[in-house]
């Protein structure tokens, strides 16, 4: 579905109200990648430190894939989110990306006319537990994210996060 496109990846973090970013980058953009087959390589490093008083609202990384249409306008090409693994260690996650679909025939027609892809008003809503009941999407591919997580202060407060299986 994404074959033959130029893709750029943007990441950001969505977290609960008890969480703050202590250090590092909260957002990042990748280079624009073209691919001859169906695999796009971003190799985009992420580095962020979070602080919290509560595991609720654990940070999630929100990924947006952006491409350009024939008029050089940025169009969304896919969205997804993944939970930053709460278990310290190394983990590779593969998650599906999807594009929102128009919610009415009129909207679909106007999008087709202007060439704009349907977009979320705020991409971070996909990572929240509420408000997605009426969304219709179409899966278009997968993204692989490698996480290396270290944590401090977990057992001191009585938390057991389990071992990496």
């Amino acid at each position, binding site marked *: *579905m994404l074959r033959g496109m130029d893709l750029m990846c943007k990441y950001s973090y969505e977290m*609960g109200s008890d969480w703050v970013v202590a250090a590092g980058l909260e957002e990042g953009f990748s280079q624009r990648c073209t691919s001859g087959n169906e695999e796009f390589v971003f190799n985009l490093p992420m580095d962020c430190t979070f602080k919290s008083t*509560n*595991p*609720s*609202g*654990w940070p*999630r990384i929100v990924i947006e894939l952006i491409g350009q249409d024939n008029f050089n306008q940025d169009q969304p090409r896919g969205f*997804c*989110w993944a*939970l930053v*693994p*709460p*278990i310290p260690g190394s983990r590779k996650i593969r*998650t*599906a990306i*999807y594009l929102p*679909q128009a919610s009415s025939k009129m909207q679909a027609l106007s999008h087709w006319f202007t060439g704009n892809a349907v977009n979320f008003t705020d991409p971070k809503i*996909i*990572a*929240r*537990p*509420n408000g*997605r*009941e009426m*969304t*219709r*999407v*179409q*899966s*278009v*591919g997968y993204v692989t994210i490698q996480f290396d997580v270290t944590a401090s202060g977990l057992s001191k*407060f*009585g*938390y*057991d*996060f*389990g*071992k*990496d*299986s």
Partner: protein
Amino acid sequence: MAEIHYLGEIATGYGFPENKLCVRYKIKYGAAWKLISGNKDGQTQTDWPQDEDEANFNHFMDLHFGARGIQGWPQIMIQVYLVDSNGRRVLYGYGSSILPITAGYEEVEIGTWRPADQSIRGRLKSYLLDSSPELAEPETIISSATQQRQQLAAEAMGYVKIKFYTVLRNFKKYGIET
């Protein structure tokens, strides 16, 4: 008080006759448990996958429980719906599962079923419209082994995969081993 955090994701649905799906879920728990924060129920997005059989929901669940006893451990009950191109919602399956009891990562695969009308009329309706009878009060039947299940004819439907990261707090202090 012992606490549990479930950082979960209703991830995918697969193995159904059609793959245009959405999932509604509800969390049920006993009197010794309290849901400190998080949504007790919700509905995922509807996915119409193009290339693959799997429908992706990518729905975040953030549950924080306080526990005073082990009885009534939280369960998740799901109802899967087909959302077809005519806007019809057809019941595609009921299912339930206990939320994980061990700290760490776990993928829970819930097999779903739906009531089946075995009469000629029922089978014809199921074949033509892909619909099935629905339970009037699904919750008791989905989540426990009641007498009513004995009289129910059902057919097997697909699977829903839910990924959980479970975080326990103070369980060792109260001497509970999981």
